[in-house]
């Protein structure tokens, strides 16, 4: 507070002048409390304002030209597709145990169109925890043993070569299909893909090759697509397992596909390729649906919050809404839709916008309250799925190879008559045709539109430039508070006289004292370092725990917790030297610890925002208040004022919420209800995180958990 006061007389001895920017910094540091309150409030408010600030999407790349050509998919192609659906749902085709019959049917249909067909055998690769593989590219070097003949999947791949194209680029269409227990929806998705495929064999405008991948989803949709991509991008030339697989009688049986004589050369059991992939579409049809109209859901989130280019989503949205009359859906957090506080917030924003519009008619940022609630629900799910870092569908496999991909899930209003089926085949097919045609028009790869965005509705988005503000406001006070704490701790200890915090006050104190004091932070830094080291150990522990055979999630989790506590105690006793615990320095020790913690959290959040913004944002929401408020409970109890009491309550609540498992259960409870919460769930969740190489796992283990431990240790500091 001393800084704002200005002296009217300037007749003192001249002092070394300080640069304005430094003065500004000192100003902020000395007002860190006010600054942090203002910044944090503004940050949270900015986050809630995002749905209001969302812009309408627009197609940025001119070459896409969606919907400019009238769809060519006719009833002829639809009836072709219908034929395939009938053949696949025919009970005769399911006679074989391995579902090879239906693969043969699909391959035969592809061959009849004149496409090049090949089968791709793959062995599902179990997702395993590789501590050092987090940011490395997907590799082919994993040679696995113990392949049995029974466990393999077969992808059927059909390729249409563009008649006049140069074959440098390709568009991929993926339909997951489980031959063993396929629902009607899967067959229908194959029907749609086939009708589009049969059209594309005849068109003259094709400039890029078309690959239709029927991914065998009996080991999971993602695994099949990922296996195919791995073979496509990083094939193994020296393989030990393939000859093994060739021995299996069933496989050889597969290749006795009796193609018609003309297609003899078109079929091969070797892997076939086309050029660089320009985009990929995954098509699914949901079996059951409660909706009253045909909707199409877009899933776009890939691993670590990577998104496909916004143009791809725009094209699908534009074509679906304006051409095919389908309703487009993006994932929402449904529980948020009914929350009353959001509704009130939306109403407040609405009325504010009304007032603003009256004041100045050009201010048109208002959205209605219902729109606001829906936008917030979509935004929240967008943030959540990006933060999770786990792909929301098979399209995630493509993103690992820098291919823009989305999953389209058509959920038709369910009825069984033929007219309806033809209608959905026609509309779905025309949508896919339109998207493929647009991508086909592309001269360059997707680069015009955004890669970093959050969706608030299928046609609205928040770009990185806007959502960055909320995060920046949230973490802005961290360095200031750290600096002010450091300064305060340095100046206010026993050597110093008063509570003036400017560096000038220190100049006249004892040199020796300064030397000791200015290095005191190293002690706290050591503590912080030890806790972070512990965090790294804790994140590595699951690798060893997962090696234990026959372990239920609950016991694994318990073992993990026990080992973590044990390792913390061991580390503390071994590394934390008792020398520094001199009584004199003890007093403001917690302030230094807090300062260093806050700096480390700032660094961690900053780094994470580059890797996965959404994780950093959610982490900042949890950790920043906790870090800023942390203060020894003893002090607060001693003070006994209302303010300290409030702070104590806040600290206790935040200390509970910010503990990662607690945060997880709270979130889960909010989404699904608290009824079936189980301790093992957290273990499962963590397992899925590391299986998908999600950076969120690292963040929780190495930033959030240490931060929580440090804050708790500050809370229980004995001073």
């Amino acid at each position, binding site marked *: 507070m001393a800084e704002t006061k200005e002296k009217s007389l*300037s007749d003192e001895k001249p002092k070394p002048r300080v640069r304005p920017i430094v003065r500004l910094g000192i100003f902020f540091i000395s007002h860190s409390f006010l600054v942090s309150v203002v910044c944090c409030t503004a940050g949270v408010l900015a986050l809630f304002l995002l749905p209001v600030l969302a812009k309408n999407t627009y197609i940025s790349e001119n070459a896409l030209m969606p919907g400019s050509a009238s769809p060519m998919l006719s009833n002829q192609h639809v009836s072709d597709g219908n034929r395939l659906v009938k053949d696949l749902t025919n009970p005769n085709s399911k006679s074989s145990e391995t579902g090879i019959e239906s693969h043969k049917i699909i391959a035969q249909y592809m061959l009849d169109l004149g496409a090049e067909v090949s089968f791709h055998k793959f062995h599902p690769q179990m997702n395993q925890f590789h501590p050092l593989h987090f940011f490395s590219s997907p590799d082919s070097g994993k040679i696995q043993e113990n392949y049995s003949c029974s466990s393999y999947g077969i992808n059927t791949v059909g390729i249409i070569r563009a008649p006049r194209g140069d074959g440098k680029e390709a568009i991929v269409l993926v339909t997951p299909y489980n031959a063993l227990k396929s629902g009607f929806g899967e067959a229908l998705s194959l029907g749609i893909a086939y009708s589009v495929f049969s059209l594309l064999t005849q068109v003259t405008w094709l400039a890029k090759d078309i690959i239709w991948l029927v991914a065998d989803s009996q080991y999971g949709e993602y695994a099949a697509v990922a296996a195919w991509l791995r073979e496509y991008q990083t094939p193994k030339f020296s393989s030990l397992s393939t000859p093994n697989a060739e021995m299996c009688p069933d496989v050889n049986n597969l290749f006795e596909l009796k193609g018609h004589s003309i297609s003899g050369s078109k079929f091969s059991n070797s892997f076939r390729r086309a050029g660089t992939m320009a985009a990929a579409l995954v098509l699914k049809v949901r079996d059951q649906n409660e909706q009253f109209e045909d909707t199409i859901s877009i899933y776009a989130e890939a691993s670590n919050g990577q998104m496909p280019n916004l143009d791809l989503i725009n094209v699908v949205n534009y074509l679906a809404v304006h051409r095919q009359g389908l309703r487009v859906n993006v994932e929402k957090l449904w529980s948020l839709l009914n929350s009353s506080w959001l509704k009130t917030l939306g109403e407040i924003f609405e009325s504010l916008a009304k007032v603003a519009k009256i004041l100045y008619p050009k201010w048109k940022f208002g959205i209605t309250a219902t729109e606001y609630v829906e936008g917030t629900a979509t935004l929240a799910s967008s943030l959540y799925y990006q933060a999770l870092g786990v792909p929301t569908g098979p399209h995630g496999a493509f993103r690992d190879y820098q291919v823009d991909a989305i999953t389209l899930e058509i959920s038709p209003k369910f009825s069984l008559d033929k007219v309806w089926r033809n209608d959905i085949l026609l509309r779905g097919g025309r949508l896919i045709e339109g998207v493929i045609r647009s991508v086909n028009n592309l001269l*360059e790869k997707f680069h015009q539109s955004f890669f970093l965005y959050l969706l608030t509705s299928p046609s609205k988005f928040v770009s990185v430039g806007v959502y960055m503000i909320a995060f920046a406001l949230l973490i802005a006070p961290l360095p200031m508070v750290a600096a002010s704490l450091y300064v305060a701790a340095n100046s206010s200890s026993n050597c110093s006289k008063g509570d003036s915090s400017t560096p000038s006050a220190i100049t006249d104190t004892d040199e020796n004292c300064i030397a000791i004091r200015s290095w005191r932070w190293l002690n706290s830094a050591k503590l912080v370092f030890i806790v972070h080291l512990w965090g790294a150990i804790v994140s590595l522990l699951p690798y060893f725990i997962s090696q234990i055979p026959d372990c239920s999630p609950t016991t694994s989790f318990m073992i993990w917790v026990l080992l973590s506590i044990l390792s913390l105690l061991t580390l503390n006793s071994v590394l934390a030297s008792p020398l520094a615990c001199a009584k004199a320095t003890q007093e403001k020790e917690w302030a230094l610890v807090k300062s260093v913690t806050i700096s480390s959290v700032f660094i961690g959040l900053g780094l994470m925002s580059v890797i996965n913004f959404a994780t950093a944002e959610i982490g900042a929401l949890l950790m920043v208040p906790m870090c800023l408020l942390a203060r020894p409970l003893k002090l607060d109890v001693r003070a006994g004022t209302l303010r300290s009491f409030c702070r104590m309550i806040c600290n206790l609540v935040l200390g509970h919420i910010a503990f990662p498992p607690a945060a997880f259960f709270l979130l889960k409870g909010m989404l699904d209800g608290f009824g079936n919460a189980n301790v093992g769930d957290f273990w499962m969740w963590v397992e899925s995180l590391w299986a998908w190489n999600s950076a969120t796992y690292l963040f929780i283990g190495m930033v959030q958990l240490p931060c929580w431990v440090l804050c708790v240790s500050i809370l229980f500091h004995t001073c």
Partner: protein
Amino acid sequence: MVLLQRPHILLLLIGTHQFLQCWIAFGSVNEEGQKQEEFSEELLLKPFPDHKLLAHFHFQSSATPSTSNGCHHHLFPKAISQLVQKFRVKEMELSFTQGRWNYESWGGFDPISSSNAKPPGVELWAVFDVPQHHIDASWKNLTHTLSGLFCASINFLESTATYSTPEWSFPPASGNVRYGTLPCEAVCTENLTPWLKLLPCRDKAGIALLLDRPSLYRGFYHSQRLHLTSTESSSEGIDSGIILEQTLTVVLQPNSERAIEVHASEKHIQPSWSLSSIFGKQVSGRCVLAKSSSVYLLLDRGLVAELKFPNKENGKSAANGLTSENFWSNPSFELSANPDRIFLEESSSHSKSLSILYMFQVEKYSESEPFDIGLMWKVPVAWLCQQTPLHASRFFMGNGNERGAIAISLKSTQFTEGFMSANSKDGSCELRVEVFQVVPWYVKVYFHSLRVFVDQQPRAVSDIIEKIHVSPSKDKMSPGVMEVVLKLPCRVNTAALTVEFDKGFLRIDEYPPDANQGFDIPSAIISFPNFHASMVFLEDDSLNKSPLLSKFQEKCPVMSYTEVLLVPLTTPDFSMPYNVITITCTVFALYFGSLLNVLQRRVAEEERFLKAKAAKKTGRLPLLLSKLSAKLRGRRREPLHSPPSSSSFINSKLVLKVILVAGLALGWQYVFS
């Protein structure tokens, strides 16, 4: 007047005399030249197994040696002969291609595919007959000339980073070859028109009349090629002048409209076609300048084997008997016109069955009775074209913008098996494969990382590679070239060759306008020196040899091109220069501003001034302003004994006033709107 006119007449006389002399002299040369300056036009049609049809136009003109007739030509295009003379081109080939040759269904083991299947875009190679240090200059001039001649951006091949110097793997093996490709060049009718201009009849008469642009460019593949050989300046005794060979290879789909409606039952019968149905035109007589003008229909070995001609055994006698009924009226197909002659292939070493060639003379036809040939299929036939010994495909491995690998994988085709079983008797059987690969400099290939896999087993490079020549790329100077001869065992099933690379960075001005498309890596050439694609047809008169058939007889090694690859490089944000300029300017402004500030400032005087001001004790607002300025200048002092309330009071009052005024304004607006 008479007097005046006389000299004119005299002049005229002299003039005419001289002209006559010249004319006579020219005529005599002309008579001589008639023997050698020739033009011939031919068209070869060949059905493919996948319901498509190959039309291969072959025009050949030859010029006499320049010494005999100066620079005058009758038929031969002057532009070409000038080009040859100027740049001392010994041999040159230029091809414009659109689409891909489908090696699997269109074959790769016959003279047509081996020499006419070209990579997409433009390919140019030339052999010069100049001293080594002049070659690059000649090449540059040649590219510019051709660029102007064919309306294409061949001039981009001028820079040293785009062309290469193959050492030995490229067919006309000699040190004077330059080779360059433009894989992303779009080929269209503006390239065809200048090409047609080189023909004596253009496309106004003769077979070239068929070149209807819409139907040509509707095709699946088309490649126009210009090949010239000149022995003009060679030191050898034979002096045959320049031979210009222009070919246009098109793969068309006969009546593709009907194919949509046709259903599964009829789908397997080959479509019937005729010249008028595929080109929409008919040939009304030959180009009068052409020495020979003929249309051929080739049924290749596989097809002939399927058709089971009744007297295949005594084929030779049938060929001698020319129009033997058995050969053209077959139960499975029908020709709409009677062939003038039928050629049978001489027994080849690689295949049991022999191909048949029907020949039609266009001379017989005229405007009133235009030439049209059609083929009607009666029963479904299916066959396979003869393929290259190994099917080559090339692709990228890896992901990301940093590094990757190029892989060339070779797979044996069904043809090899038969051949190998025939050849494996003589012990050590080897299959030689030559690979010629040019890589632009921004794809930095590490040749030491070359790895070879044979039948899925990694093999030592020295075991497999017989000969290798590598010239590493120089940044912005020259592309990397790799020439390898692989020595594979005959029974090889698959072989693969991988080389790793790093992706380089380009300067911002080196990016093309469509940098985000990616960069093309030209096709690799895979050739099989052990195998020769040649077709020798039995002919009775060697005098009247057609250029096309004699071309077929040449023994050229089987060659195939791999796909063009697209490598995405990191592209900068192209608005970056603007940002850089802005930031730089800001930094400069800040720097110079503060520098000037420091230089200008007189500290003592300022302090005196401030003191004087403080003594004056001005009003509140100026005080605040001076405070603000003092604050900004960093002259704030420790407030030790000033009353704290005063300044905050002033501040809050001012703020209150401002808020009041703003509120009033807003209220006014709110009430009155």
